[in-house]
């Protein structure tokens, strides 16, 4: 069974704080992804990574950075949190094969005050 875990289910931070969201998968997947989910907008890709230390910008990377130092772990960093980054953040992973589906973590609901 694929398991994708995220470090927190709920987070409350203040504007300007640096925020770290951690994601760990236990299935040796090459690909990892960070999305944010907002009502009416579906899921939007922030960053993804297809290998250790490799990263690619998604559709909305502004205000975010990522780190992948180990294959199983992918971190999302908000350098200076802003209220418009209040959202649900979902991590996902998948195998390298192109037909493989993505497996999602439980999500982190972030509130920036």
């Amino acid at each position, binding site marked *: 069974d694929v398991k994708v875990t995220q470090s927190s289910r709920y987070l409350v931070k203040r504007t300007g704080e640096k925020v770290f969201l951690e994601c760990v998968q236990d299935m040796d997947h*090459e690909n990892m992804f960070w999305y944010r989910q907002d009502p009416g907008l579906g899921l939007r890709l922030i960053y993804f990574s297809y290998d250790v230390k490799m990263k690619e910008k998604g559709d909305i990377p502004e205000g975010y950075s990522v780190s992948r130092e180990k294959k199983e772990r992918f971190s999302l960093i908000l350098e200076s949190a802003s209220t418009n980054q209040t959202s649900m953040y979902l991590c996902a992973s998948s195998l390298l094969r*192109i037909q493989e589906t*993505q497996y999602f973590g439980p999500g982190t609901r972030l509130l920036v005050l």
Partner: protein
Amino acid sequence: ELKVEQNPLFLSMQEGKNYTIYCNYSTTSDRLYWYRQDPGKSLESLFVLLSNGAVKQEGRLMASLDTKARLSTLHITAAVHDLSATYFCAVRPSIIQGAQKLVFGQGTRLTINP
């Protein structure tokens, strides 16, 4: 730029009825995915459709793909309350250095009333 649109965005239906959710996408792709999300939960993979004419069924849900029309449908047969959830389709526009980037639709919130 690939755009993925679902309709309807909200659907309320009675148990026992049939209905269809539509997923249109704007550029060529032959990989389409359907996911389910229960309230407060994460996304669960339902179907992966890999070629034109592909049809997959699981219980009361059936998904199909028409790559020429750039359309996928998720058909619900004789709906039951347990199928209440938000359903997302997602399309893969291209392979970028091996990664599997997906573009998601807005989601269809389905409510099935007894």
